[in-house]
């Protein structure tokens, strides 16, 4: 398979696979990352990353892992259409997944492909971030694995949850707002419908802009019932 173009077609349950750089450090790659396989020697497959944040990196991984994770399916060219429409504000919403913690949620409804889900646009009030204003935003391909402690405990509540460490930065401000899974939002699009995350994730990560940087266009409509 030397010289062949391949794509990351399978990932671990956290949403990532990793190749090792020359110093042995693991460099995580998300699904549909494009790679060129160079050679397989001593049970290691060497490859070059052709798009995404790690474009140009030369990495290797166990040859069996490469066989398992690399495939021929490319991402869809173009951006997914992610729509969010503001809904009601609910003070004291009970987060069962967070041990019945009471959270003040500005909810919205999300739609992408054939998936509809409830999202929270803000939970923490009176601080730096507020609900995302109505408008159109681009959504980047995932920037890197986010810490498992932020979301892994949601698996105790929703056993089908996977790829929870895959977050999508929204191209606004300092890019610390994300489309991600969870119950707590600080100006993010936080998918509270935990059982929908896997499908939403696939709908997003399976798309790429021509330059490979973006996966979706996010259109926010309506107005939050609570804005500050």
């Amino acid at each position, binding site marked *: 398979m030397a010289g062949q173009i391949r794509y990351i077609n399978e990932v671990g*349950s956290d949403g990532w696979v990793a190749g090792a750089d020359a110093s042995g450090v*693991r460099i*995580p790659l998300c699904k549909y990352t494009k790679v060129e396989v160079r050679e397989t020697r001593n049970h290691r497959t060497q490859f070059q990353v052709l798009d995404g944040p790690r474009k140009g990196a030369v990495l290797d*991984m166990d040859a069996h892992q490469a066989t398992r*994770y690399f495939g021929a399916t490319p991402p869809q060219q173009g951006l997914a259409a992610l729509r969010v429409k503001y809904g009601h504000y609910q003070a004291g919403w009970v987060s069962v997944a967070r041990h019945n913690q009471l959270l003040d949620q500005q909810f919205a409804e999300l739609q992408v492909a054939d998936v509809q889900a409830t999202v929270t646009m803000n939970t923490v009030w009176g601080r730096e971030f507020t609900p995302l204003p109505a408008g159109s935003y681009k959504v980047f391909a995932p920037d890197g694995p986010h810490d498992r402690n932020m979301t892994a405990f949601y698996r105790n509540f929703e056993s089908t949850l996977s790829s929870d460490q895959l977050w999508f930065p929204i191209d606004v401000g300092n890019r610390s707002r994300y489309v991600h899974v969870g119950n707590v939002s600080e100006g*993010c699009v936080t998918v509270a419908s935990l059982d929908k995350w896997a499908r939403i994730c696939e709908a997003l990560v399976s798309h790429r802009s021509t330059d490979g940087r973006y996966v979706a266009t996010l259109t926010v409509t309506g107005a939050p019932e609570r804005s500050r």
Partner: protein
Amino acid sequence: MSGSRWLPLAAFALALWATPGRPQDAAPACGDFLAKAAWRPATLQFVDCEKLEIYGAPALRAHYRTSGADAAAVEALLSARTHMPPLRFNCCGWETAPASPKSPPAGRLALDGAIYEVSMTSGETPVNARAQWPTIEEFQVYVTRFLE
């Protein structure tokens, strides 16, 4: 007992021996990696070590915790010793975040001929100001060794 019965076992042992790096990687022990490196600060408490899958690969991960009051000092120590990137608040919690997509994603610790990756997190929290770290009950530190 016929000598030929030992041939498969001998071939298997030879294959293990002949594979670069395999003897020392065959069964690394899970444990307090920072203590083994002889520099775990007293403010960092070892919790446990487990084998799990990370990024689709088997790994050993040692788990430590420290109080919110001591977290800044621990972060500074890990950054100085392992070049761990500083923690950044991302909706919604503090986590090790590289300065740029090209930067190393975690700190690095060389031990026993292997590379261990070092990261730190508050977990999910609404506390988004560094000055308020002491109000966070505890931070977690992870030291990870990949097995393949």
